């Protein structure tokens, strides 16, 4: 018991360190109320803030990657009542899309249909270089932290999320640094090393323990697969029809890929899932467009967005016919 004598002598109550901890908790509590409405690093921050502070009553909800974002924004501009555009970024993987849908449904009535602009819903284990910025820093409800702790099985991954949850100053540190001109932080959407001209963190490797955990929790499947199945089950339960649309690609990419390389396996797995979840509908192939319509090989040039959005609106209307 000698080791614990410091607990019983109560001198630690006058400790500067302890009082500092209490002061930090008070300051962070206050910052937690102000910073999320002050700093918006990327579209996911915007989206989550809107979901927390606004109400929606969409008939069709659109989630997905950044190409989907171009298209659903285009459709929204063409036909405002058709869908609620909430596509954001592929970095969210299916896990982030599932959390977005959960947050949407927690405050709003269920839509009739959900459009998912996703190339491969089975891809992703939350190990990309973007995971920190788009998942760990954004989805910080205790339920989300708990679920990711289980799915990912990494104490450090979870500890990082908890610290973001408890310490908003830490969560928004790059944004705060950007407000100090002398520090020269210009880009907050990247890891700070990149913002300062350094190299980005490399993708996280999976060690043997992590592989074992993934086999045990996910049956050897990816985390995205688990999230996708959860999303399907949720939609099934709420009667939401899902339309999974792969992103359009340039003719050069199509040529590189060959005859829809890898798509066959995805379609096979989707067909399996369709037997289990009859709310699932999907397009089997990506549409192909000329190279000059893409600005970086992936995203449309601004000038063609509306035309392509109109095509996809027609496609969706066609598919959604009863």
């Amino acid at each position, binding site marked *: 018991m000698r080791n614990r*004598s*410091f607990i019983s002598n109560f001198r630690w109550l006058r400790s500067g360190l302890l009082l500092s901890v209490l002061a930090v908790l008070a300051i962070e509590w206050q910052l937690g109320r102000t910073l999320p409405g002050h700093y918006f690093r990327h579209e996911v921050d915007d989206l989550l803030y809107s979901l927390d502070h606004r109400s929606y009553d969409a008939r069709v909800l659109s989630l997905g990657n950044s190409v989907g974002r171009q298209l659903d924004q285009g459709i929204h501009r063409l036909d405002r009542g058709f869908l609620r555009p909430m596509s954001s970024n592929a970095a969210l993987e299916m896990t982030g899309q599932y959390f977005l849908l959960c947050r949407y449904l927690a405050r709003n009535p269920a839509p009739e249909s959900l459009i998912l602009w996703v190339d491969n819903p089975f891809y992703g284990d939350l190990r990309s270089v973007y995971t920190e910025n788009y998942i760990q820093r954004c989805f910080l409800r205790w339920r989300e932290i708990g679920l990711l702790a289980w799915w990912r099985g990494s*104490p450090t991954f979870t*500890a990082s999320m908890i610290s973001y949850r408890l310490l908003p100053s830490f969560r928004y540190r790059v944004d705060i640094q950007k407000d100090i001109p002398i*520090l020269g932080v210009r880009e907050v959407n990247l890891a700070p090393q990149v913002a300062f001209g350094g190299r980005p*963190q490399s993708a996280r490797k999976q060690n043997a323990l992590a592989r074992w955990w993934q086999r045990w929790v996910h049956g050897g499947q990816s985390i995205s697969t688990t999230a996708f199945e959860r999303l399907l089950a949720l939609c099934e339960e709420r009667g939401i029809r899902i339309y999974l649309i792969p992103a359009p690609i340039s003719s050069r990419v199509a040529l590189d890929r060959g005859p829809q390389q890898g798509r066959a396996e995805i379609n096979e797995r989707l067909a399996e899932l369709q037997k289990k979840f009859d709310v699932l509908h999907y397009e089997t192939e990506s549409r192909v467009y000329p190279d000059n319509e893409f600005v970086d090989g992936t995203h449309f040039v601004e000038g063609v967005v509306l035309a392509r959005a109109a095509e996809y609106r027609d496609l969706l209307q066609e598919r959604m016919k009863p």
Partner: protein
Amino acid sequence: MLFNSFQFILFFAIVFGLYLALPHRAQNRMLLIASYIFYGAWDWRFLGLLAASTVADYCFAQWIEDLRVDRRRKQLVAASMAVNLVFLGFFKYFNFFIDSFADVCGWFGFSPHVPTLKIILPVGISFYTFQSMSYVIDVYRRRLTASRSLPDFALYVAFFPQLVAGPIERATNLLAQIASERRVSSFGLAHGGFLILWGYFQKIYVADNLAIITDQVFAAGAHPPGNMVLLGAYAFFIQIYCDFAGYSNIARGLALCMGFRFMLNFNLPLLASSPSDFWGRWHLSFSTWLRDYLFTPLGGFRKGPLLAYRNLFITMFLCGLWHGAAWHFVAWGMYAGLTLAVHRTLQAFRPFAKLGEWLVSRSVTLVLCILFRFLVIDFLSPILFRAQSLNQAGQLLSSLFQGWGAMDFDVWGRFFFYIAPLFAMEIIQYRANDQYIVLKWPLLARVTLYLALFYGIAIFGMQNAQSFIYFQF
């Protein structure tokens, strides 16, 4: 497992919880297991090397103690040194010596085919090897009785706070603390807590942010203008200090929380007034190791000035080589030896000695001495140390004379932004001659300081944990 990672924070929380719950003997066993887990988290394949080194020195020390014949004792201590140096030499210097041999052959027109191995340097090997060697030598010198408990000795070698980057603890200090019961006290927690917080601040706020500047200056193929070379040199000097002193402070703080007392490793070396003063403050656990086990046995300053300089240069040559298997480290060590030799020579002349005493006795002139040492004498050291080769060091130095270049005030501003709190704190500590002076401040001032340190870490820290520079040594 870096100190500045969530992984380590979780690890230490568990270890400390168990430590509080266990009695003394079980604490030691638990700390030993935790230390091996800590080391194995980096690369489990080298646990065998750590264990082999430990068992070898444990046995050698007992045999040395049990023997009465001096010649046999000497042979055994030599054998122990050989085992340690073979381990160290193979992992750290094999390729260096092979490459250097090939280079020398090349000068004479031969081009031998020499084998090079892809050898991974086990993290912290220089630290635990030197720590273990000091134990055997102390037993040989009869300054210490050999440990009869292998787990205790294994913990002495592998104790996780100081395993990979020191301080290089002497058995006379640490082994005795391991063997006796320790006490977790509010004093230890307050002092340890401050050291940990200050160490993290030095590492995360100062060192990691300065690294961004130095990485740009010292990048391979970079041709920075003169003013950036100057900035890079000073930034790296402060970076490596904060990186290493930060690690040492965290290590000492963690140990103090558990009731252990590690030796002071850095005594405000940035504020040293002369080269001798600097080496009396910088990496003390290593510099005193070199003094006690190399410089003094060589004869130290006792055998006349010529031998004294020889001893000094041998010591500093090996000091450079200890830091890394590369000629620029050797050049750095030799330059440090040269500054020490020049300072010692000047001190030998009475007028200079008097002048030196007068200079450090007044505040204004003392500040000038400190600035002169830092800005002029030690300007070359960081360039030799950080450059990737002697060639690059030469290029950087020559660029100083090729053009000053336009000042990038943003980068200079960032440099001062990151070093200002460090110097403020160190000047306060220096003036009070007490590294714990802030613990004597009024409560409100302490809380304000802790909050400032905490938010310096939380807001200005890098996104991802950066490794410690001294791990590679």
